[in-house]
């Protein structure tokens, strides 16, 4: 029961409380780049969820069975970067071969994701300690965290795309047109997401 609760709490935290884009400022470059159109935003969001899940699994295994036993945790940054970049390229090839239709819709975003700070950050967080149980992430927990962070990114991206499409029609002052107004709407969304900060199910923090 206990591990199930922590999984739900992790998912909740990654999607709402510490949303990747709106609370932790991660993944902003693609976030503002792709959120112009709803279709490209959903495509990018899906691709990010997909890649984050696989990357979390992969890096957790490497961390647990290679980095820790050899006590070379300081190499973490390099090994993870290598894994993520090559993984994205590998995924692109695999998708192009086996799922061309999926590749058509997500393919163009894959190279964009390989340099995405959110992806790298979720991997680093997975190696840290799970704030709800105090122990390091287990395999399931780190995968769920990857997926949930991806979903958080997707939600923020889709919301943002919806807003920006409406913004096209509003008469925005000339100097604020383009990126500044996008930042302001992101700021307002971050303010809204701040409301989730006190949220925590089951026991209050530190209950265990």
């Amino acid at each position, binding site marked *: 029961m206990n591990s199930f609760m922590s999984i739900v709490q992790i998912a909740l935290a990654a999607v709402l409380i510490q949303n990747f884009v709106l609370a932790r400022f991660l*993944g902003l470059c693609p976030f503002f780049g792709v959120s112009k159109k709803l279709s490209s935003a959903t495509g990018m969001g899906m691709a990010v969820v997909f890649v984050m899940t696989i990357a979390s699994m992969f890096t957790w295994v490497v961390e647990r069975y290679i980095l820790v036993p050899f006590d070379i945790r300081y190499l973490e940054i390099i090994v993870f970067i290598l894994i993520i970049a090559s993984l994205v390229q590998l995924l692109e090839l695999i998708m192009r071969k086996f799922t061309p239709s999926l590749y058509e819709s997500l393919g163009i975003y894959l190279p964009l994701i390989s340099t995405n700070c959110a992806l790298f950050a979720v991997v680093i967080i997975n190696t840290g300690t799970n704030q709800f149980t105090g122990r390091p992430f287990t395999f399931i927990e780190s995968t769920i965290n990857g997926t949930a962070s991806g979903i958080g990114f997707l939600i923020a991206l889709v919301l943002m795309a919806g807003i920006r499409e409406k913004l096209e029609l509003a008469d925005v002052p000339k100097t604020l047109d383009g990126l*500044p107004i996008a930042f302001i709407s992101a700021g307002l969304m971050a303010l809204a997401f701040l409301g989730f900060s006190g949220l925590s199910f089951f026991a209050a923090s530190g209950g265990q």
Partner: protein
Amino acid sequence: MLKEEVKRGVITENPILILALGLCPSLAVSTSVTNGLGMGLATMFVLVCSNIIISIIKGWVPDKVRIPCFIMVSAAFVSILHLFIKAYMPLLDQRLGIFIPLITVNCIILGRAEAFASKNSLSRSFTDGIVMGLGFTVSLLILSAIREFLGSNKLFDLMVIPKFQPLTAFALAPGGFFTIAFVMGVVSFLRSRKEARA
């Protein structure tokens, strides 16, 4: 020649405000000026070194593995910097904790590496590294000065106005977005005025 390059890096092609690169760390770290300065200089160091190495090995790396190699070069410099800061500057490490590894994926470094260093000679990429790093640091300082003053009524961790009750929202996430939106608005206003006059 250098003055013109610096002007390009800081004003016309400022990485954060104009090219909108490297937004993640600039918003996350700009809660205090000392953080901003530390982050700016660290990024500059990594940017310059990785630009140099990439412009050296650019001809030699096969195209298929170009992205992994370039990112790994910058990751290496970040780890070296991370160890260096942990060893000799523990205070800075305590403040910039999670953000130092994020420098590797900072869009500026890979952006400049891909766009510039992999196409130009060593000396040009070196100057570009310095100039872009400078632009990044300057805009980071502006952002963090505004946010620190408004968010926690401090500059360089010293109180500024006695009775002023700080709006803590500015130190939090929304404040970051609003500050950068405001600064970008001012920059585009100045640019359109300059174009109108020119």
